[in-house]
Structure formats: C-alpha cells, structure tokens
C-alpha cells in the first residue's frame, strides 16, 4: 500500500477535485488500516434542495456504516460548527422523507457505505475540511464519545425494539385521525363538485375546467381488458368452423404441421441428450 510520506503536511487532492481524508475508528489502534473519505464542496448545476446550500455544504464519499449522523457531526465539528448532516446510499437528490409518519413505521436503514452532505454553519468549514492533511486521520470513536458496535450495539438495538403498546397506539390514533380528516375533506370536495354539476333552478349546468376528475370511480385496466375479450369471444362464436372444404383442409394441414413441429422438437431434445451422453445406461 502506497502511503503518503509523513513529512507531507499538505492536503491530498486527486484528479476530479476531491480531497482525500483518512479515517480511523479509534485512537487506540494507531497501526490499523484507514478508510479514505473523499470530500469536495457540494456543487451541482441546479440545486433544488434548500437543505443543501451550495457554498456551505461538503460532499463526502465512502462513509463507513457505523458512522451515523451524530458521529459525522462530531467528527466534522473540528472544521467548524456543523448545522446538519444528511446521509444517503447514493449521491443525488435526497429521497422524499415520510413526513407525518412516526418512527415506528419508517423502514430500517441498510447498514452500508454511504455518502454524506455536511452543512456547516459557515462556508469556512468546507474550506478547512478540504485543506486537512491526509496523514492526520479523523477519529470516529473517542473515549468521551464512544461509538457502539458489535454485541453492545445489538443488545441496545434489541432493547430499543421493545416498545410500549400505549405509545404505539397513540401514534396509530394520531395518524388515523389525520387520515380520516383528509378523507373527509376529499369527500367534501367531491360532493361539492358533484353539486356543481347539478342543474340549478333554471336548468343550467356549470361546466368547469376540473370536471375531468369528477368521475366517482376510475375505470381500471382489468375492466378494459375484460370488455375487449368479451367482444372477441362474441366474434369467435359467430364464425363457422370446418364449414368450407378449405377450412377442413387447413385444419388437417395444421395437425400435420403440429406433429412435425413436435417431431422436430423431440429430435432436438434427443440431440441435446446425445451430446450429453445421456443414453449410456451405465
């Protein structure tokens, strides 16, 4: 492994503009191998996400699975106060977060390597990070802020998975109340629209732009198919079979053709088996 010489106190920048930082799990094992984080200021042509301000966001590659948001905040605080950390499996726009759903119902996060978007409070944090020399590794787990892994972590996880039924019930109730309210609103709206379509006293109907969605039930794909098939069957029933001589002849021809096809298929199968020496009985 080619390591940077120890005298080099400069940041290591690779083609592509990324600065390489090294990462160590804990202070104790100074001989241990290091992971390499690649960092760069976050820069995309059109950033729609307000949570990633272009000048203050650091884009980090290759974040090990045991680094959670809080760990990253701790580690990167040495470059300046950190406002927020966002971890995701792939670089790119952040997935729409499930708002309004309690933590019990969000799916578990995969324990894989991720990328991070670290938003500093000041733009200087980004620059400091990019200037950090490669041979001074960042430390993940320190004595005052240990990171739990292995057995201790799993026991903690198990303990956390035991939840009180009442708090779960509370969350469910809250969600269902919201849901019901939403449904009610929806129904109300539909009712209003339906009312608008009714004739008024003078016999006028108001035609609005949004009338397309008024249909009470959306027509479905299966229903479409069903009607198509029904028509096809009707057509078939009307047709006469084996009525004309040519029809009769054709059926016979087709029968022979089918036998032939089967024969050819069988021949092929045999050839394959022969090639595999499947006819040696012993």
């Amino acid at each position, binding site marked *: *492994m080619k390591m940077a010489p120890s005298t080099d106190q400069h940041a290591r920048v*690779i083609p*592509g503009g*990324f600065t*390489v930082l090294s990462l160590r*799990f804990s202070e104790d094992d100074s001989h241990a*191998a290091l*992971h*390499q984080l690649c960092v760069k200021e976050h820069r995309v042509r059109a950033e729609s996400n307000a949570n990633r301000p272009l000048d203050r966001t650091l884009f980090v590659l*290759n974040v*090990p*699975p*045991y680094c959670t948001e809080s760990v990253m905040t701790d580690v990167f605080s040495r470059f300046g106060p950190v406002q927020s950390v966002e971890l995701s499996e*792939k*670089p790119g726009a952040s997935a729409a977060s499930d708002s309004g759903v309690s933590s019990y*119902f969000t799916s578990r996060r995969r*324990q894989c390597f991720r*990328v991070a978007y670290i938003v500093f409070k000041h733009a200087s944090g980004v620059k400091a990070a990019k200037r950090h020399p490669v041979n001074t590794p960042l430390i993940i787990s320190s004595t005052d802020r240990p990171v739990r892994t*292995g*057995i*201790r972590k*799993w*026991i903690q996880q*198990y*303990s956390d998975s*035991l*939840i*009180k*039924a009442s708090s*779960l019930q509370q969350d*469910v109730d809250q*969600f*269902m109340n919201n*849901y019901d309210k939403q449904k009610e609103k929806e129904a109300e709206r539909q009712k209003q629209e339906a009312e608008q379509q009714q004739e008024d006293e003078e016999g006028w109907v108001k035609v609005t732009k949004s009338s397309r*969605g008024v*249909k009470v039930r*959306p*027509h*479905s*794909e299966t229903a*479409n198919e069903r009607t198509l098939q029904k028509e096809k069957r009707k057509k078939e029933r009307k047709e006469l079979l084996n009525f004309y001589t040519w029809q009769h002849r054709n059926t016979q*021809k087709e029968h*022979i*053709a089918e*036998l*032939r*096809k089967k*024969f*050819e298929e*069988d*021949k*092929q*199968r*045999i050839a*394959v088996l022969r*090639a*595999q020496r*499947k*006819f040696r*009985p012993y």
Partner: protein
Amino acid sequence: MKKKRNESTETVTEDQMEVIANSQNEEENEKKSAKRSKDSKRKAKDTVSDDGVLRPVKLSKKELFKAPTVEELSQLKEAENLFHCSILKMQMEELLKEVALSEHRKKLVGSFVQQVTDYLQCVPESEVVELDDISWLSGVEIPFLLVPSTAKGKFHMEPPASINLVGSYPLGTCIKPKVSVDLAVTIPASVLHPMDAINQRYSRKRALYLAGLARHLSFAKFVGSLHYSCLHGNRLRPILLLKPPGNDSSKVTLRIHAIPPPDFLKPSRFHPLKNNIRTEWFTGVANTQQESSEPPTPHYNGTVLGDHLPLSHLQFLSAISAQCPAFGEGVALLKVWLRQRELDQGAGCFCGFHASMLMAYLLSTHKVGKTMSPYQLLRNALHFFASTDLTENGITLAKNPDSKAPSLPEFHAAFSVVFVDPSGHLNLLADMTAFTYKQIQHEASLSLTFWDDPTVDGFQALLMTPKSMLRTYDNVFKLVNLVKLQTSCKKLLLLNELMDHSGNYVLAALPFILSLLQQGLGERIHLLAHSLPQDPEWPLDSAPPKHKDQPPLSIGLLLNLEHALSVLERGPAADNPKAAEFRQLWGSRSKLRRFQDGAITEAVLWTRNSISQKRFIILKIIIHLLELHADIPKSCVIFVGGQLDIVIRRGIENHTTGEEESLEVVQSYDDLSKKLWQLKDLPLSITSVQGAHQALRYTQVFPPVPVRLDYSFFDKKKNHLGLVPKEDKPCPCYIAPIKVIVHMEGSGKWPSEPMAIRHVKAAFHICLRELLCKQHNYRCHATPGYLDVWKDGLVFRIQVAYHREPQILRESLTPEGMLIYRDNAEAQALELETLHKPFLTSTLHGLQQQYGCFGVVCRLAKRWLASQFLLEYIREEAADLLVASLFLHPAPFTPPSSPQVGFLRFLHLLSTFDWKNNPLIVNLNGKLTAAEQTDIKNDFVASRESLPTMFIVTPNDKKVSVWTKEAPSVQMLQHAVMLAAESLRVLETQLDSGEKQDMRVAFRPPLEAYDVLIHLDSKQVPLLAKAVDPPANTFQRGTEAEQPYASGGALPVIDYDPVRLYLSELREAFGDLALFFYDPYGGTVIAVLWKPAAFEPKPFKTSLMNARRVEVNDDVATTVPNVEAILQDFRITGEGLVKRLDLRTEKWVV
C-alpha cells in the same frame, strides 16, 4: 478418509474459483471447443444447438406445410399412436444404438475366438491318472472346492470333441458394456464314464478338464489375462475367463465352459426327485439306510443336466428369433432393465439367457406378436412378470415332453420358481429364491405404472436410472461373517440342502433365513429383497475362494409405515391352536397379555420411547429371530440406517431426533389457533389462522423447544416490557418466533392506502395483545409488524393480514385517471409472506400426514445444506419442495419410508437434475394435469433465459418459481451440485463398507476454498450445541431444565442471534465485494470469498467509491478495495463476537 476428502475438496476449490472468476467466459470457451470437435466428427445439424441448451424450434411456414410423403405420414402416425410422444421411440432407438456391438468390435471378437479355438484343438493328451491325483497340473490349481476330498474315477486330458460358440453372442442379443462371449468346449466321451453322474464325479472331471485347458492356454501368447470364475455363483460349474491382451482387454471377455457330449447321460437320471449324491459319501459316515430313502438332490441334478443342453438351447432360440425381427432388440432392452435393477448377475439371477428364453416363451405362446417393436416386446414382458406368479404357476417351454419328463407339480415341489426349458427336464430358474422373483414382479408392476403415467419420463425411470440397493430400499441389513451360516445350517437341520448345494452353506441357508424374516416382519414390510451372491473371480495359481470369503449379503426392506413402527406384535388368542406356532416363532419374547378389549392373547412388546428409536424395532426383530432360530450372533448383522440421526439429534443426552418436538409445537399452535378463533370483542372477525413456519409443517431442522427461563440471567427493561440480554454473559438461548398469519375479514372500513393499512394492522396487533392478555393471561408484545405471544415456553409471532393489501400496493393511477396494476417487489414480498408461505405450510403438513418420514428427510436435507453453507442460497422452502418431489414423484423408486434413503435420494436429485433444460414440477395434491405439465415445459423452453436457474413449479406457482427467484445463482447451484455429488459418493461408500464410520464427514464443509475465515467467539453463538461437531464445553444460556409455564412470566429475549445480525451487516456493507458463507446451525466460522471482479482497479467515480481507496497514476485516479480497512471493519462491526481473522493471503494480494 480425511485425506481423501481433502483431495477431493481441492478440486472443488479450483473449480469453484474458476467458476466464480470468469464462469461465463469459461463456459463459452468450453462450449466452443466442444462444438468444434463435434463439427469435425459429424456435420452438426443446424437446427441443433450444441451448447446443451434447448431452444424453441423455429420452422419456416414452407417447411411446416409442405405436402407429406406416405412414409412420413405413417411414421408420424405410429409415433402418435404407439408412444406418448415420438420422443420415447427415439430415446429407445438411441439407447439400442448405444448398447449394440459395433462392427469393429465384432471383428475383434471373431478373430480372438478363432485364435482360441485353433489353439485349444491341440491340447496335448496326458496319461490316465486317478481322479484324486492332481499333481500333473503343475502350477495351475483346480477350480473346485474338493469337499469331501475323495472321489472315485480316472481322468486324462484329450483334445476337445468340438468347440462351439453358444449363448448371447451367436444369438445376437449380446450388449455392451460387459461383452462376454461364451465358448462351449465339449469334453470327449472317452474321458467320461456313465457312472459319473453321482457324487460330483462328473463335476470334478469337468473342473479338471477346464484346469487342463487353462494350463494349456497359459502358454499362449495371444491371451491377455486368464481367470477362473463360476457360472451364476454355482461352484460346480467353474468357467475360464479369457481377455485379449493390451488395449483390447476391456472390449471382450471370453468365457470357456466345459460341457459333456450332448447325449452323454440320459436326462431322466436327473429327475428333480432323484438322488445323485449319496449321504454316505458326502458325510463320510457309514449309512445304514436304504438307497431308496436317500433325499432328492434337485439342484445338483439341474446343474449336471444344464451342462448337456447349451447347444440345443441355442438351436431353439435361433429358430425362434429368426421368426421375429425385433427379438434381439427386445431382449436387449429387457437386459438393460434387469441390469439397472441388479438382477442379472450372481446366484439365482435372471440373466440375459433367461430373458431370451422368456421372450421365446412369450412368442411361442402368442402372448406377443411376431411383428411387434422392441418397445412392445419389453412392455409385454414386464406385463407378463407383473401378472404371472412363477412361484405358484410355473411355465414350460416343452411342447411335447417325453413320458419320463417330470410334471410341473413335481418341479414345484423341488424348486421355488419354475420355468422349464424346451427339453422338459430342466428348470431354468432352479437357483432363484421366491423372494427374488417377488422382487422382479414388484419392479415390473412398478415400471408399468410409471410407463402408463404420461407425466413421468418412463424412459429415464425404466432404463436409465440404476437402482442400487442403498438407494432403493428403506432399510438395508448386511449379514457379515458368513461363516456363521454354517452353524445355522446345523441349527436348521439343513443337511439335505447342504448336500444338494454341494456344501455351499450360504445358498443352502438363504431361503430359510429369508422366510424366517418374512414371517417375523409380516405386515411391517411390503417387500423383502436380497442381494444376489456375486460370482467370484480368482487367478489360475490360487485355490478357489471359500464360501465364507463372499462379500456380505445385503437384505433390503421396503417398509409399510402403517405398521413398521408399531411396538406391539399381537398374536392369536391363548386358546387358539395357532398360539403355539406364535410362541415357537418368538420364543421367550412372547408373553400372554390382556388387552383393553378384554382379549387375552399372545403378544410381543418392544419397548421404545421416541420415534427415532422405534425405527430400530425392525433391527431388534431381525437380531432376535436370527439369534433364536439360526444361531447368527448380533455382531453379524449390520443395520444401514439411522447412522445419520446424530446430525439432527436434539441434544447429546436426549435421543429424540426432533419428531416429538415438532408435534408438541403443532399441538401448542392448534391450541393458540382455537383461542384466536374464540376471541371475543374483536372489531372485525378473523377469517383464517394459518401457520407459516417450517416447524408447523414438521420441516424445521431443529424445532423450537419449550424453555423455562432463569430470570437472573437477564437484564429487565423497565415498564415490564421484557428481558434484555446482558453484555457480560454468553448469548442467551435462541428462541425462534413461530410465524402465524391471521387474516381479518374484508370490510368497507379498511382504508385503501398502503400506509393507512399498515397503521390499521398495527392497531389490530395492539387489540389482539390486549384481548389475549385479558382473556388468556398470555404475555405479549405488539409491534407495527407483528405480535409476539409467549405461550407454553414457545413464542408465536402473529401477523395480521388483509387479503386486498398486495393488490392495493400494486395499484397506481395514470394521468388519464385509469387504474393500472403494476407488480412491485413490496407487493411480491407481502404475498410471499401472507399467501404462499401459509399455503405451502398447510400443503406440506398434509404431505407429512401421508408420508410419515417426509419431515425427517427435509430436516436431514436442510441440515446438510446448512452445513455446506448453502441454506442461505437455496431457501428452506425450495429445499422442502425438492424433498416433496422425492415423495410425489419417486420414479423409478417407491416413496422413501426411512430418513436415510430419502436423504440419499435428495443428494442424488440435487446432483443429477438437469436444471438447465428442465423445470422441476412438484405436483402437490396432484392438481396439475398432464396437459398443464406439457404447457409448463413448453413455456419453460420458450423463455429459459429469463427464468431462475433453479425453476420449481407447483400448482399454485406455475410461472414464477417464487422460492428460487432470487437465489441460487448459476455458480452457487453448480457449487451445490458438486458438493452433493461428492457427499453422496462419500456417504454411499461409507454405508456400503458396513463398518462403523464417521457419517459426519459429509456434513463438514471444505474450507480450503475461502479467502478469509472469521472465527467467532463460541460464547456468543446461541445455537452452538447444534453444530455438526458439538464442542465439549457448553455455556449456561439462561434456561432451566424444568417444565415451562403455560402462560405468564416476563417476555423472553426473542429472535436475538448476534451472528445473524453480524452477517446481515456484513452483507449490506460488503455484499458487492465478497460472498459470506455460514452454517446457521451452530457454525463458529464465517467464510469469506472475495469477488474477483470487484478487485480489478476501476476508474474513480463518485458512485463507485464504497470501501475503496484511491491511487493516482499519471493524473488518472483509479480505485481498488481497501482490503486492510475492510478487514479492520470485519473486526469493528463484530466487536465482542469475532475472535480472530484467518487470512489466506496466498490466494490474493493486498
């Protein structure tokens, strides 16, 4: 053994590396080279794909609709009418081509026979000596056991009167692979004497003459090897085996028989009721009895008489075969059929000669037509076997026997199976036991049923699959140390039989021992079959092997599971006259017992506790009977079966193999299900309660065992939520949650959005929790996904399901407002859990009721898969289905009735099934019709590429193969196939050798192939005690040995297995770089294999940086995996669990 295993695994290693390295390329290259070589051999037809994969046939319209010729029409018609399809006909033709002798081979045989004949004509004459004097045979032993040693008569050598080809070769029924050509050398009449018929004098002269020929031939240069042997295990009929020298030695074996002149002795002297061996001479004790009271010697008579007839038999068969053009091919097929069933060799066999004679009988009695095809001949022959019992109604080929010929009843009195030759004097099947004939009948009727079933590949089942003893019979016993049979002859008073068989005590005692066992086992078995004692072969300069030197005799049993495990043998009532007979059979074991219905009867009781022990009752019976009646000690009987029980045994101290535990789980589940149905105050009613766990279909390798907890071992979480493992203690015992799916009724109240449905389900879990708690005092734990119930020391995991949910997950609206359904992974996963799993569980539960040992076979199979690290790649459900197919489609066998035979067949299936070209159809409940199965096969061929490697079809899953969709991959399947073949080989040789050996060998995975081994701290492996080789030191895991509570108590630690958590983290983090292998049942090693493709340097990309490091060369940044950091991560992620890493760095460079 260990060493052998190592060698073989090394080859596995290399193959595997290659496979994983560049399997695709490798395969293609191979195919290409194969193709090239084939092309040069024969012009490959363009329609045939040469890579061994079936492709859909495409014929142009013109080709399909051209006018047919008459010939083609008749061919197509024949194929349509006679066979299920034309493929069977073509298969038969191919097979016949494969076994027929080539012209080249015939030429070789012709010249070799000519050389030998010419050479034998000039055997030098020798002086007349006494029969006892064998000093003139310098250097060559006489191929005869001289017991008793003295015999009267004189002997001298003289050139043979004539030398003729006899048997299958001149008849044209000789087939590969063991081509043997029979040469009959007629002894000149001057050497023999009319009184030679008695006291083995003729037989000894015959042996001496053969020895003379052998001595002469040993000087010949054109002879490759010379051995003695004997015909069909009959020591009175030695033969000489000649092979050509050099490379041709394997191509033909010449068998030289010495025979007397055809009319030398009158056949009437060998009437089966006449005596030709005098007791006085045989025993050496002066006999005071009259000659007329001497016992008959039918077998000896048949032997001598048989030597007179080969030429006339050949004449007879040639005449018959000339009438029927398909005779030769028909006999050839029958011979293949017999050979696959190991019926064509040894003492009492049904050999090729008998097959020809049978075909001649069928032709001469017009049971088959002269114009029939070979296929029809075979079918009719099998039909004849199945419908005719030659042990009761013998048949004869003699048209008009002379007045002195014995009648059929006389033959029946002397022999157990009767088939009389054209002369009317000889019983062709004299040596066959009634049991062998019953075996033939059984095989024939089984074959016919397979043939009539359009869904079974009859060709494969009948003619291509070898049915070895171990794989065919549920239980196999071996009689070793055959010398003990001598004492049993004494005990059974078999002097006359011993005389008749000229001292061969094995053959003499065999029928009696077999019928004794049949009597004792009675209803417990369907069939009792035995291996045929094989013909020994020995060199010229050594004495013939003794009778006791034979290989062990195997006895195979097909069990009738209804009765086989019963502990009680109930006999007749005490006052019944048959009671004495019963007492005589069972000896002191039989006791008078009073039963609940008031009857007092004789009965034998075998005390056994567990089901696995009950399987040994048959062994007990056999040992008891043999010891009591035949003086065969226990040490002579070796039982093949039950040796594999150790790997699925519950613990070292208990002897149960988990069947009882499974039952207990099912009972507890039934109780829970009843209580769920009866719950009051549920907002919606329950429409179904279904089990969805392997334990509920009896196929969980180690079924959950009720436990009682030692609370001090755990931490307690506040609010009485449950117990939590302590950090400093060993991992607590693993409590597997048993999944139960509860469907709630449909109602308008169910919301129509996925998220809302999940919340409603969570609400149901909470509701069920409260009701179960209140009404039955069960401790429960509700989560959004499931509800855990702590009951009877077991944990049931109830999951509420709503039948429309998968459908709702698939729904989406198009911009036009149309409702469309699109399949997605989430919906599929849900359907798998709530639909497929419960259905499979209930179906297989039914299968277990039908076939008693289905569950055990499944568990053995899965134990093997797990131990070879395959269970994570071949899903448990897929493995269950594989085993189910053994029971539902057993052809050519019967459904297995013992764990061991089922397991062997599982390995055989896995190692030989052609996954590339065939779907495995598991016709559960027989729901698929033949037409549907054909459709499935056609669809499969049409879209092979897009389907999973291992394609398993069930009636509910015809298109997708849900259980094998994700895994295994091609490479993994190939790996599994290789491991299965190797394990099968190792196991069968061990079981066959009859000695006590370590059966666990097949359950130890080869570790040489892997790059990194992660050794785990056994303290933290919860299933440690279930390992294939359980360690001596065990840990206290928070359980008490007392009876568990039915309800109440703190909630235990459920489904907490650190190793599984560790593995899933490893796979999530490093799944792109490496494969991880583990035995989930107590393994202490995780084996890691790097993916070679991931190790090549790749250009730097933001999407490809995970766990890699950057190197810059000439302003180009490339990345490679950061191996050292990854290894460090293995340690960090598994802190407290990982003991050490074992790096095999010689395989890869950092």
